[in-house]
């Protein structure tokens, strides 16, 4: 098979040997599991259990909330002790909604029901995928049910199983392919069934010969038509657009996705999880995690989601001089805000830091436009220009220069002789743009609402006027419609009522003036006359005062 070279890339020290020689260590059950609701891209899951509920392993504890979301399950049996904010592995360091389970140590499964995927309607099958909690385990944790939906996009001709694992230190996919290749390929079968790709390729970097051999053997054994390809080891060769270029030669359009050129890419871990879910009825409650770096026994563990990272470190042998934990690899990973944050679906690696392995970044110097970042950028951007624009908050120009094509691989920060944390600047610019767009959307909505209100008031006024006019017209039109007899009767009634009222008025005579002497009577008459005169004057129009 002809391979193609994607642009850019670097060759950092691999550090794979440390953890790749030992087999995957079986899962252990910690006393407490903390399951964050936001482990995937999209809407966080919605809790469906209450504090005090007893849950079994694999039981759904939170449901998918909307289309871009997946469900979450109890990683082990136990009791729900808390539903609230807790520390999560996120670069922001902000706590998030989590369900805490106090485990009972029995690790008792709920009933596991495999799905007969060959005879299930595709839409229903994708619903199962979502309810089994399957999201991309390569790091992006995008809900797999959406990626497995071929509707609405260009036809997918090639399905790529991504076994690149290009980040230094990480070996979880390597070990998974070596030990559990058959399940990976069974998962790929389901994917191929759902998205209808003719071609199935597994891309594995050539620093993992054992994994390549294991995948080939397994494919032959279970009869899956797949091409297992050894790719050159170049970081970031495992990026979606990069592996697509390497294996198919297709350039993903700027601003687009690999599906635009008919290629869908899944991480091998996701494929494995899919097979475990549909073929064995096991929802995604654990994943393989590389625990490496500054520990005594670097190794891969099958870890229950929600396991505190600090407990993992204890298992791998904590060492003196630990300075922190990176979740993920040294290129794209981030420092977790606390040692005891839980392992989540995105945690492919728990990398223990020491001063020797990860010395603090030297002070940042000014950019001298040396452009060493340009030839290593896999998106063929001008990182130094984007840096200037981000610094100057010239967000429009940053977008013009394709800021959103940046995959944040970190190659530019790796080579920068001025030690500028370039990706931080790009992330800042991106989040600023998102925030501004959100603000603009809100402002637009508010303006539209206001404009609609004005329009509505105007319309109501007009409608009211029309209604009144119509009413008046009908009244006029209706008035002659009354028969003269009816009118006469009405008039008569009115006149009678008036007559009665006048009679009543006449009958009532003032009593307090009845027996007054004549001079008083005359006085009253005089007063009455004066008042009448005043009333007369008051009735006359008054000249407006001149100022």
């Amino acid at each position: 098979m002809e391979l193609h070279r994607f642009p850019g890339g670097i060759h950092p020290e691999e550090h794979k040997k440390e953890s790749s020689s030992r087999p995957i260590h079986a899962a252990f059950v910690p006393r407490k599991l903390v399951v964050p609701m936001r482990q995937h891209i999209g809407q966080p899951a919605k809790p469906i259990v209450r504090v005090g509920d007893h849950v079994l392993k694999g039981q759904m504890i939170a449901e998918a909330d909307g289309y871009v979301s997946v469900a979450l399950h109890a990683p082990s049996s136990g009791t729900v002790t808390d539903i609230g904010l807790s520390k999560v592995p996120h670069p922001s360091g902000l706590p998030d909604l989590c369900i805490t389970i106090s485990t009972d140590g029995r690790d008792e499964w709920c009933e596991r029901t495999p799905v007969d995927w060959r005879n299930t309607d595709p839409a229903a099958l994708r619903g199962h995928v979502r309810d089994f909690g399957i999201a991309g385990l390569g790091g992006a944790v995008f809900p797999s049910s959406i990626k497995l939906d071929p509707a609405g996009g260009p036809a997918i001709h090639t399905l790529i199983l991504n076994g690149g694992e290009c980040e230094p230190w990480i070996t979880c996919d390597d070990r998974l392919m070596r030990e559990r290749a058959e399940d990976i390929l069974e998962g790929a079968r389901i994917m191929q069934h759902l998205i209808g790709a003719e071609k199935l390729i597994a891309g594995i970097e050539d620093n993992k010969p054992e994994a390549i051999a294991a995948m080939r053997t397994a494919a032959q054994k279970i009869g899956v038509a797949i091409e297992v390809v050894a790719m050159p080891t170049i970081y970031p060769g495992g990026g979606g657009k990069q592996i697509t270029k390497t294996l198919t030669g297709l350039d993903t359009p700027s601003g687009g996705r690999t599906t635009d050129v008919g290629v869908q890419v899944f991480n091998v871990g996701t494929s494995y999880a899919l097979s475990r879910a549909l073929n064995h009825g096991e929802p995604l409650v654990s994943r393989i995690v590389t625990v490496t770096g500054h520990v005594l026994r670097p190794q891969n563990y099958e870890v229950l989601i929600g396991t505190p990272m600090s407990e993992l470190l204890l298992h791998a042998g904590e060492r003196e001089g630990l300075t922190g934990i990176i979740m993920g690899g040294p290129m794209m990973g981030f420092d977790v805000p606390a040692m005891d944050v839980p392992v989540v679906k995105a945690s492919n690696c728990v990398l223990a830091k020491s001063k020797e392995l990860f010395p603090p970044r030297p002070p940042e110097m000014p950019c001298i436009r040396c452009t060493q970042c340009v030839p290593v950028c896999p998106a063929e951007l001008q990182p130094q220009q984007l840096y200037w624009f981000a610094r100057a908050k010239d967000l429009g120009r940053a977008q013009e220069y394709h800021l959103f094509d940046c995959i944040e691989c970190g190659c530019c920060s790796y080579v920068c002789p001025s030690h500028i944390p370039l990706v931080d600047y790009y992330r800042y610019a991106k989040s600023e743009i998102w925030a501004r767009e959100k603000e603009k959307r809100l402002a637009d909505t508010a303006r539209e609402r206001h404009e609609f209100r004005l329009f509505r008031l105007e319309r109501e006024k007009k409608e009211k006027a029309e209604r009144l006019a119509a009413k008046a017209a009908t009244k006029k039109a209706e008035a002659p419609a009354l028969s003269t007899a009816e009118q006469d009767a009405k008039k008569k009634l009115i006149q009678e009522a008036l007559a009665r009222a006048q009679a009543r008025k006449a009958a009532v005579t003032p009593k307090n003036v009845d027996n007054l002497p004549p001079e008083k009577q005359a006085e009253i008459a005089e007063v009455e006359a004066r008042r009448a005169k005043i009333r007369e004057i008051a009735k006359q129009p008054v000249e407006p005062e001149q100022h």
Partner: protein
Amino acid sequence: MTASAHILQKGSVTRVMLLVLACLLPGVLAYAWHFGWGIVINLVWASLLALALEALALGLRGYPLKPFLADGSALVTAWLLALSLPPLAPWWLTLVGMAFAIGVAKHLYGGLGQNIFNPAMVGFAVLIISFPAQMTQWSAPLSLAAHPLNFGESLSFIFGGGLPSGVALDAVVTATPLDTVRTGLLQQHTLGEIHAASHVFGSIGGVGGEWVAAGYLVGGIALWALRIVPWQVPVAFLAGIWLTAGFLHWADAGRFAAPWFQIATPSVMLGAFFIATDPVSGSTTPRGRLIFGLGAGFLAVIIRVFGGYPDGVAFAILLMNLCVPLIDAWTQPLVFGEAKKK
């Protein structure tokens, strides 16, 4: 809480700058070999001035001294300016030049990485406009000088202005080949006559000067091999000179010197590999660098041949520095997957 890579390739601004200095050494050695101690004294003097002025400017701006003095950028400026000045330039000439280079061109524009113009070339331009007499007193190659100055004599000439008794200025300095050509042409001589009448011409360029140029070329190629400078700028710069000079020479060989002669001067080789390639004040895109180099080469010859100054390289590069924002904006390369979109 950084999202950028947690690991770094070995490398620093200091390393870049020191490599530039190292690659200047072949040219410097050839210079000292052919022209004597003057250049060595002036390099040391300019370096001391650079560090002092840099420290002063950093102090005034409230910047930390250690990282910025250690970055080596001031030393590169000092060497580039010293190598552009006559090797026996008086001490105050270097001082004025460095003050403008470091103080105005670099720090008034915002310091390292912010300068629009190459600082050394700004210093040079100020001097050649303000002190034309001193700027044309070039030491004669040792092989041609009536009295080659030794170290002590060079030192006292640079700092005291005094020559050993009985030695006239003419015995020490001489017109450069470019000056000789210019003066000869003004006196209505043809190039052939000028060459025949003077000893300053070597096999391609000037005596000694051509070897200095060769030294810069060797260092420049090393700089490219080390991936410190891109190939586009020097290649385009030399091509610009070659094409422009070649066209003029083809049009009138009696009036316009051959392209080889134009290229084999120290200023051209220094400009091509060490000054036009200054990343801060140069273009950053591949096509932009070609345009930048070609433009600078073209202007250098035009200014040399038709202008009033003995050399045009500095002005040519400064003029092209001005055009960089425009060039960069025009020559943005396509990003990955962009061509397909259209």
